[in-house]
């Protein structure tokens, strides 16, 4: 037990994490590029849909983006929670660093959904429960980013952000179940009922590969952001000085 605690403390120390993430990033990005290549190839070669024709292919971007928008929010809230309770600097930074990535995926999900909605539904936007709750998610992300930048003290800002992230977590089940709880224009879930998938395997495979690609992309890009934030916040500490010294010589 003590060993695990020791290992944990070592991993979350800024200096060690900076080193470790530096080693991991190329792996994440490398695997992401390979998986993405497979996913994109599959997305273009998947069969045409019987109802929607070629337009349905936007789901290969839309579904992973929407999935990531929720996954990243949960990661952000969990990291914020850990930072809030245990005052671990790395957790606080992880929460803050996740927000712009999540906001980007949310915006992508909304934009692709809207572009697809015009030809298929006949409108870019409707105020149904699914679309509205996803839009609220985007505002939550923007709120997190704005709140963090509004407070000068990094640690205090991170705690305020954690509370906002925790408040917003209630929106995640609302987004997911909105299509079941209320009548919406958005169709019910295709993927989350794996026992009886309502998607042909030839279409499902590239979609799942795209989801995996995005999931690998997230830690890669997150670690880059965390490293940049660590360097800035720890710029007066000895390990950064040592690091810069090493690179200077």
């Amino acid at each position, binding site marked *: 037990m003590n060993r695990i605690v020791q290992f944990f403390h070592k991993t979350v120390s800024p200096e060690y994490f900076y080193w470790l993430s530096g080693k991991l990033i190329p792996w994440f990005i490398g695997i992401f590029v390979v998986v993405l290549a497979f996913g994109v190839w599959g997305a273009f070669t998947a069969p045409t849909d*019987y109802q929607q024709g070629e337009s349905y292919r936007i789901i290969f971007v839309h579904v992973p983006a929407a999935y990531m928008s929720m996954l990243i929010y949960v990661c952000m809230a969990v990291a914020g*929670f850990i930072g809030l*309770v245990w005052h671990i600097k790395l957790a606080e930074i992880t929460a803050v660093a996740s927000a712009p990535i999540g906001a980007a995926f949310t915006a992508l999900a909304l934009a692709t959904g809207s572009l697809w909605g015009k030809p298929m539904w006949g409108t870019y936007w409707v105020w149904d*429960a699914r679309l509205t709750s996803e839009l609220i998610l985007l505002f939550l992300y923007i709120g997190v980013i704005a709140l963090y930048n509004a407070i000068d003290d990094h640690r205090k800002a991170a705690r305020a952000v954690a509370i906002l992230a925790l408040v917003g977590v209630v929106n995640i089940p609302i987004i997911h179940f909105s299509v079941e709880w209320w*009548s919406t224009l958005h169709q019910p879930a*295709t993927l989350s009922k794996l026992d009886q998938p*309502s*998607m*042909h395997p030839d279409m499902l495979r590239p979609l799942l590969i795209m989801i995996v690609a995005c999931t690998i992309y997230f830690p890669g890009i997150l670690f880059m952001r965390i490293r940049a934030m660590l360097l800035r916040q720890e710029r007066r500490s000895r390990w950064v000085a040592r690091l810069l010294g090493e690179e200077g010589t």
Partner: protein
Amino acid sequence: MRPARKQRLWMAAFIVAGVAVAAALTMTAFQKNLLFFFSPSDVMAGEAPENQSFRLGGLVTAGSLKHLEDGLTVEFIVTDFGHSITVRYSGILPDLFREGQGVVTQGQLGADGIFAADEVLAKHDETYMPPEVADALERSGHPIDEDKSQ
């Protein structure tokens, strides 16, 4: 666990639980406003607002689509297999509009019982498959529409 940490843990848990309860109560209170459309049965039961625009949703009855003589106006029957309402609409129908598929229409119910729509949106289902598979299902006597009507 140190007391200060424990206190913060409880505070965080309290925030999440409090917001969840507040959200659940709010959503229960606004349940009706959160519905995007009314089904024909809701309308027949008098739940839809009268003399006021609302959204009507359901499946387009197969074989019910009629083009009126002016060439622009269409009529079709929206059903939820309990009740049916005739919808009249002048304008361009979305790509996914088909007989047997879901639609959401916005408009007013007239005194003649015909729903005058000024917007028709196609609501599609969560099924994705190649056309050959859809044809095969049709041939084997298990058309896709059958699953949807459940």
